[in-house]
């Protein structure tokens, strides 16, 4: 373990012995961390390793149970984010902290001492524009947040912190929501900020990015530091991966060859709107066959969620059609899809996938409650439901004291097992899996992957919607790329470069034409 305890005048942040407990979890176990002036310092670790907790402490959102924080050679004790901001520390959260109904300028002025009473928006619009130009970030100060793309919203977040005079920027997984091209833009901005004397903490679980952008790296595993402030150039990717996961990571999956069968899902020139009433799908065509996993790649917010909703019947179709096993299910109720054997692993496990205050039993019978043996006419057979649930509990290793436990008390991994158990137990012909591994730790991710591959071998047609390209390429037989509600093309050979270009809006034909031109 590399130690950096000494007083170095270049250290702008020194956190020592930080301990933070949450009920049932030790999120940070005496963690040390230092940040030098003018560096990009990566904080690497799996989901749940304690990165965000540590940085939320530095940003004043949490109070540590023990430990000390020194910022610019001064002991600090933050009681709120306001204190941290006053000390020059600004955090850009993974879920943007922007008020959707307010303008860019209004969001930037939020919480400021000035203007004291009247907002004088026109005056401040100019200030915001000027600040953006200084760091090479273009943004319309009068636009409402909900009208902006994710990349633009991130810029607003950065501007918000710069406007507050932040010298230390904490970026929590900033690339997770961006397209490859936007990531490049972000990296340019980050380098520009470092050149102006700012220091940046870059939280990530993606090794490639960490290697590319950062100067030093600190690795966390299960709340403990496994590498503290190591020079990025002195380590290699495999070693970092081991420090992060604690064992050698198997990058390959055991995928058996399966001959695809009949078309199960066919989507034809589909149009649909998002929650704001703006077009989200603009003519999507795709099909999924028996025994194959088809990936749908794309940056978040390009229509993936709406597509999943439309296929499962949760959202109205404006134009076009959805066929499941050759039968039209366009704008049919959700129950019809369920009867046709559609299962759905939703993106939002707590708000859509489960009923948090109901028991595990009540949650696993959600798709089968109206079929025998659980239902017997009007009657719900409580014994049969319990038997069903306890069978699934054993088969899917759901770790709970009792089946009566409300699911809100389950951990993320256990919760996803409950959902998977339910969705697989109804023997699906078509499975729509949306971000099935988001937020899970490595062990749980492997389990999910294994279950998906098993379903593929069992002959299910699977549409896998994910923002993790590695996962998509590892599992899928084919990958479609979606951009602004249109399918840009289909990739069978896992060509990452092509996928990246399509994710930023280039059609496959254009890429290929371009290549031909180059060759000629």
């Amino acid at each position, binding site marked *: 373990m590399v130690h950096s305890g000494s007083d170095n005048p270049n250290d702008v942040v020194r956190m020592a012995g930080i301990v933070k407990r949450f009920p049932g979890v030790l999120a940070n176990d005496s963690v040390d961390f230092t940040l030098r002036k003018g560096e990009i310092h990566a904080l690497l670790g799996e989901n749940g390793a304690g990165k965000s907790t540590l940085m939320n402490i530095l940003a004043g959102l949490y109070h540590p149970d023990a430990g000390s924080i020194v910022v610019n050679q001064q002991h600090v004790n933050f009681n709120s984010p306001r204190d941290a901001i006053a000390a020059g520390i600004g955090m850009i959260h993974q879920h943007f902290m922007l*008020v959707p109904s307010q303008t860019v300028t209004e969001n930037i002025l*939020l*919480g400021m001492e000035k203007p004291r009473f009247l907002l004088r928006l026109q005056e401040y619009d100019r200030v915001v524009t000027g600040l953006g130009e200084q760091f090479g970030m273009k943004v319309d100060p009068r636009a409402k947040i909900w009208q902006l793309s994710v990349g633009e919203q991130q810029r607003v977040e950065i501007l918000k912190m710069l406007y507050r005079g932040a010298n230390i920027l904490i970026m929590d997984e900033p690339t997770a929501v961006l397209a490859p091209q936007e990531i490049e833009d972000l990296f340019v901005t980050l380098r520009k900020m470092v050149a102006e004397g700012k220091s940046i903490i870059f939280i990530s679980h993606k090794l490639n990015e960490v290697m590319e952008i950062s100067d030093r790296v600190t690795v966390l595993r299960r709340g403990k530091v496994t590498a503290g402030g190591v020079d990025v150039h002195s380590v290699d990717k495999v070693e970092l991966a081991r420090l992060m996961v604690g064992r050698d990571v198997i990058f390959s999956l055991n995928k058996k060859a399966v001959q695809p069968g009949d078309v199960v899902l066919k989507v034809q020139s589909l149009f649909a709107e998002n929650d704001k009433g703006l077009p989200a799908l603009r003519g999507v065509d795709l099909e999924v066959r028996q025994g194959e996993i088809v990936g749908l790649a794309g940056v978040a917010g390009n229509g993936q969620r709406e597509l999943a909703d439309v296929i499962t019947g949760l959202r109205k179709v404006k134009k076009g059609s959805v066929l499941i096993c050759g039968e039209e299910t366009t704008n049919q109720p959700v129950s019809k899809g369920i009867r046709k054997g559609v299962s759905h692993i939703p993106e939002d496990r707590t708000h859509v996938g489960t009923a948090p205050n109901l028991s595990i039993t009540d949650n696993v019978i959600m798709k089968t409650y109206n079929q025998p043996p659980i239902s017997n006419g009007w009657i719900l057979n409580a014994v049969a439901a319990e038997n069903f649930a306890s069978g699934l509990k054993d088969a899917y290793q759901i770790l709970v004291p009792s089946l009566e436990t409300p699911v809100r008390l389950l951990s993320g991994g256990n919760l996803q097992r409950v959902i998977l158990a339910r969705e697989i137990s109804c023997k699906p012909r078509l499975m729509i899996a949306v971000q099935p591994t988001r937020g899970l730790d490595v062990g749980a991710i492997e389990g999910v992957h294994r279950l998906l591959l098993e379903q593929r071998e069992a002959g299910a047609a699977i549409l896998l919607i994910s923002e993790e390209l590695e996962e998509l390429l590892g599992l899928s037989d084919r990958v479609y790329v979606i951009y602004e509600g249109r399918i840009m093309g289909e990739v069978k050979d896992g060509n990452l470069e092509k996928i990246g270009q399509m994710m930023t809006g280039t059609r496959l034909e254009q890429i290929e034409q371009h290549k031909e031109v180059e060759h000629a």
Partner: protein
Amino acid sequence: MDILIILQAGVATGTILLFATLGEIFAERAGVLNLGVEGMMLIGAMSAFKITTITGNPWLGLLVAMAVAGLISQIHAYISITLQADQVVSGLSLGFLATGISLVLGEGLSKAGTIAYLPKFSIPLLDQVPVLGPVFFKDHSILVYIGYLLFPLCWYYINYTRPGLHLRAVGEYPAAADALGVNVYRMRYLYVFVGGMMAGLAGATISLAVSPGWFSELTTAGQGWIAVGLVIFAQWNPLRAAFGAYTFGALRRLILDIQGPMVILGIKNPFYYNPYWGYFLEMLPYAFTILVLVIGSREAIRKRMGAPAALGTPYIRGERGV
């Protein structure tokens, strides 16, 4: 039956609804639904009347009414903000409690007789304007004029000032406001208090100005609930709230006054000759509230506008979501 006199009285009645609606807009804009408006109005009306009978000073009554209603609203604030209970149930229970207190403390007040009321006056020059003058600027209680000033001020405050910006942020996305150092809990307590004070003011407007006296639960007769409905119709906008409140005020007056004359517009007044039909007239404000909700809700769906995003959800620091 002089239509201008009815409208003038309607403006005064509407002022009651205006204050209550504006107050609830503040609370809901901060993310706290307070269904105790009716009870808070009642306790305001009772306190104002009681203090005025004791001291003879209506201004003191007014102040006490606002303070008492504001204070009792803090019970709801504590339960729903700090203890994170369901806002619907908490607000309802506040309503029960406030009603109970009003009835206990208001015992015997209905026999108190006449008291000193708040001053009434006309605005010189403006009251000479045809139609508008007699309706809006003639012989009104000072509270009515305060109402005229208040609703544009509220609108400006919410949309164009720094505290208004913070208020909107706390109701839309408290986590964002919290991250930038806005004290979400304090803001919510504050605006629930403001909502309570305004409900108290609305109650005092009844018992000290519009229909002076204390008639136990009939003093408010559901106007607090109509105010909650108007907030939805107004889409949390003080200007629309004013429009709704004055329209409803006029409607209420019209219903009372239409039963008086024997002849209306040259025909025999059916409500004069069949006094029991009045019961159907009295249903109208409530039926209209439902109608207005249908209109407001349809418009909200069409324009995809809605309540403040965090309305009804307790804010717990560190938990995801709005």
